[in-house]
C-alpha cells in the first residue's frame, strides 16, 4: 500500500517510542521501592525507620523509678513541674547503664540564670532576678536547693 510505504519512517519512529515506553515501565518496576504507596504517596517503610531512631532523653518517669527520694523533695516545691532532664540533660544512656554512665556535675551559676535571669519579656509573675545584684557571682546552690529552691524562713539547705 502506497501510504504505508511512504509513511514507513513514521511507523519506525512510533515503534521507537513504544519500545522506549516499555523499557521505562520495566525499569520502573525494578526501581520503585517495594513499600511505596502502601499508605499514601510515600515509602511506608520510612515511617518505621523514623520511629526507630535512637532516644536521647529518657523522660522523667524513668528517673523517678530510681530516684524516688529526689522526687519526694521536688514534688511539693516550686520545681515540681520541671522535669529532671530539663536541668540534667539527656540521660537515656544513664538509664540503660546507670553504673557506668553518670550525669555531669552542673554549674548552677550558668544553669539557673537561663530561666531566672531577669528579662522584660518574661511573664511578670515569674521569679527572676538580676543575678549580679542578687548573688554577686556566687553559684546559686550556695543558698538554694535546686530540687526545692524556695528558701524557707530560717535559712536554706
Amino acid at each position, binding site marked *: 500500500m502506497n501510504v504505508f510505504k*511512504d509513511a514507513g*519512517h513514521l511507523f*519506525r519512529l512510533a515503534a521507537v*517510542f513504544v519500545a522506549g515506553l516499555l523499557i521505562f515501565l520495566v525499569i520502573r518496576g525494578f526501581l520503585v521501592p517495594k513499600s511505596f*504507596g502502601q499508605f499514601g*504517596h510515600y515509602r511506608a517503610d520510612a515511617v518505621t525507620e523514623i520511629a526507630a531512631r535512637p532516644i536521647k532523653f529518657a523522660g522523667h518517669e524513668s528517673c523517678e523509678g530510681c530516684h524516688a527520694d529526689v522526687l519526694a523533695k521536688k514534688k511539693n516545691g516550686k520545681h515540681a513541674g520541671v522535669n529532671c532532664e530539663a536541668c540534667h540533660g539527656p540521660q537515656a544512656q544513664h538509664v540503660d547503664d546507670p553504673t557506668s554512665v553518670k550525669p555531669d556535675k552542673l554549674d548552677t551559676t550558668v544553669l539557673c540564670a537561663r530561666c531566672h535571669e531577669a528579662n522584660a519579656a518574661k511573664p511578670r509573675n515569674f521569679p527572676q532576678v538580676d543575678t549580679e545584684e542578687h548573688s554577686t557571682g556566687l553559684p546559686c546552690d550556695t543558698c538554694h536547693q535546686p530540687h526545692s529552691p524556695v528558701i524557707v524562713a530560717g535559712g536554706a539547705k
Partner: protein
Amino acid sequence: MPGVDGFMYPNEIELQWSVLIVLYPFLTGLVAGAFILASLERVFQVEAVKPTYRLALLTALSFLLVAPLPLQLHLGHPERSYEMYLTPHRTSAMAMFGFVYLWYLMAVLVLEIWLDYRRQIVLLSQSSTGWKRATYSVMTLGSTNISERALAIDEKAGWLITVIGIPSAFLLHGYVGFIFGSIKANPWWSTPLMPVVFIFSAMVSGIALVVLLYMLISWARRQVIDMRCVDTVARYLFYIFMIDFSLEMLDLIHRIYEADESFRSLDFMVHSKLYLSHIVVQIALGTIAPIALLGLTQVAKLSDIARKRIYATTGCLTLMGIFAMRWNVVIGGQLFSKSFLGYTTYKMGLVAREGLLMAILLTILPFAILWVLVKVLPPWPEASSGSIPDAEPAR
C-alpha cells in the same frame, strides 16, 4: 547577624535557590521563544522569517538539552532525580514539569527537527563516510524513503507537530511560571499572572536571541542579512514586548494599589536590594530602552545599517533584561522574610558547584552544542559539511 537586616526566621537566612535556578527559567524561556518564532513561519505562514526557521529550531534544542543541568547541579541528591519519573507526585508542579519537558523534547522539538531535516539526513547518510555515515544512518531510523509522497507526509506531520508544539511551548515555560506562581507562602511569587508573564518574557528573549544569532552567523559566514526577515522578526518582537510590558505593569500597579500586608516589605526590597537589577537593568535598560528603540524603527524610516545596529543593541539589552527579570523573581523572592520584618543577602559563590563560574559555563554550553548541531544539521544546505547532490534549497 551578618547580612541580615531586621528579622528573618532562622532557617530563612540562607537562600535555597541559587543563580542556577535563575538560569534555568532563562534557558527554558529561550527555548519556548525560539520555538514560537519558528512556528510563525510554519503555522502562521509568515514567509519573511523563513531564513531563521531552522536556526530557531536548533537553538531551541541546544538550550533544551542544557536546561536540566542547572537543576541537577543544584539538587542535594542528583542521583535520585529519576524518582521524579518513577513516582511523580501529581500535586507537584515540579513533578509534572518533568513530563512536560520530556514531551516537549521528544514529541515536539526532536520530532519537528527530524521531520524537517529528514531528506537532508538521508542524503548525508548516503554521501558521507566513516562515523559521520554511521551517525546519519542511525538518524534515518533505517528508512531512506525521500520520495515526493513521503516528503509530503513529512510536511503534513511537521505542520501538525508545530500546531501541537505551540501550546506545548506555552506549557513548557508557563509551567515554570506556575512552579513559582503557585506558592502561596511567597507573596512575591504567588500571582496568577506569573505563568503569563513568564511566557511572554520567554517569547521576547527567545526571539531576541534568534535575531542576534542570525545576524551574527550571517556576518560570520559573510552572507547578506535578509533585511525583510529581520524587520519582520523585529516587528513581532516589538508587539510581544508591548504585551510583556503591559503585563508587568499590571502586576506592579495592582500590588501598589492593593498594598496588602506584604507590600511594604516588597516595595522596600525593590527600592533597596533590587534597585540595580530591577529598576535599572530589568525595567529601564531591559524593557523601556528596547521598546523605545524598536518603536523608533517602526515609525521612522531608518537606513539598513541603523536598523541592524538597533536590532543588535535591542537584542543584547533584551537578553540582559530578561535574565535580570528571572534574577529578580528567583533571588528577589528569597531576599525578604516571610515575616515581612527583614531581609537577607545572597552570597553567590564564585567557583562553587552553584556559583557564578558554573552559571557562565552553563550559559556558554548551549552555544557549543549549537555549533555542533549546525555542523551536523546545517540550517543552510549550501554551506553543509557533506556534499549534497542537488542545489535545490531544502525547504
